[in-house]
């Protein structure tokens, strides 16, 4: 069999090896780098998507939390308001009741006082009349004569009014 030189450059082998190198480059690119890089890219995209999802979920959770907190705040404020207004109403009502009661009491007292005064007057008048009558009887009996009724009555009235003032 024919044999080439041990150390030498064979032109066609040289050219063929250049071609082989580039063909090999294409084959490696096509069958190793392309699929692997595509796969890595896909994996990166998947990871990115997951991170984005997680971020969105976190954002949503934060929004919900904020809303909840706000709701809580509002509810608290409302409760306070209700409490405050209830207290106010109660105070107002109690004040009103006390006022009414005191007014009523005052009216009652007034009425009672008036009645007492009236009773007193009535009693005094009765007593006056009685005393007048008694005095007249006594005087009539003592003097045993009929004096002018008119003068007599005047005299007794003076006397009684003096008594009333003294009493």
């Amino acid at each position, binding site marked *: *069999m*024919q*044999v*080439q*030189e*041990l*150390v*030498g*450059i*064979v*032109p*066609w*082998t*040289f*050219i*063929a*090896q*250049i071609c*082989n*190198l580039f*063909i*090999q*480059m*294409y*084959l*490696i*690119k096509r*069958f*190793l*780098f392309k*699929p*692997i*890089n595509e*796969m*890595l890219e*896909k*994996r990166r995209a*998947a990871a990115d998507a997951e991170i984005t999802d997680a971020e969105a979920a976190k954002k949503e959770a934060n929004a919900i939390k904020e809303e909840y907190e706000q709701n809580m705040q509002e509810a608290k404020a409302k409760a306070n308001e209700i409490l405050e207004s209830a207290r106010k109403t109660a105070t107002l009502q109690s004040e009103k009741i006390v006022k009414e009661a005191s007014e009523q009491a005052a009216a009652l007292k007034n009425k009672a006082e008036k009645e007492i005064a009236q009773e007193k007057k009535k009693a005094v008048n009765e007593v006056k009349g009685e005393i007048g009558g008694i005095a007249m009887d006594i005087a009539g009996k003592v003097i045993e004569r009929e004096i002018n009724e008119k003068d007599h009555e005047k005299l007794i009235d003076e006397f009684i009014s003096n008594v009333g003032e003294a009493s």
Partner: protein
Amino acid sequence: MEVDISGAKVFFTIPIDFPLFGKIQISETLVVSWIVMALITGLCIWLTRDLKIRNISKRQAVAEMIVETANKFVIGNMGEKFRYLIPFVSALFATSVVSNLISLIGLRSPTADLSTEAAWAVVVFIMITTQKIKTNGFGGYLKGFTTPIAVMTPFNVLSELATPISMACRHFGNILSGVVINALIYGSLALASGKLLGLLPGVLGRTLSQIPILDVGVPAVLSVYFDWFSGVMQAFIFCMLTVMYIANVAEEG
């Protein structure tokens, strides 16, 4: 006992005589190159079968590791803008390693043929020169030969040409030396075992001396260096030099 160390066998010759280039000879180098290419491509296809995003197989992990290593090697040494060179450097390395190691299964390494390394070196040289012209402009490239003084021009041209020649010859020399030493060792061990067993008396000695018993095992130890180490090392050096030369030239501008 005869030790024959020759160039690549020619299997087939296409009988058309091209001027300057001669007849096309399908040599051992070419055939084994094709086998190497088929092996590498087959390996690539096998490695990248049913790729998954999660729960990757060991095979896919290996494929990813290879790609990451290639990316790191090229981008780490040359920078992001040379990303397009990753497949080229990978092809160079893969072809070189597999070509060097294919001698282990008894085929003749395509890299034991200077034509192969010369082809690679010339491609790399053209790349370096293109990169040089790209960074400095054509005028700047020509001017570069006259630095530091015009008298240095011939030396500069020589040193420029020395790059591909040294790259090709370094790789070729290492592989060829492996081939030569292996042939010598096989030959000498066969001779030695023939002589040793020939000392045995009678028919026994005559029969056993025909079997090169020492050829079993002993060359394997030596092939750890001459095939494995030297083969992988030379492929690495060749790629490293390619990457370094191109990166250096790109930075000069």
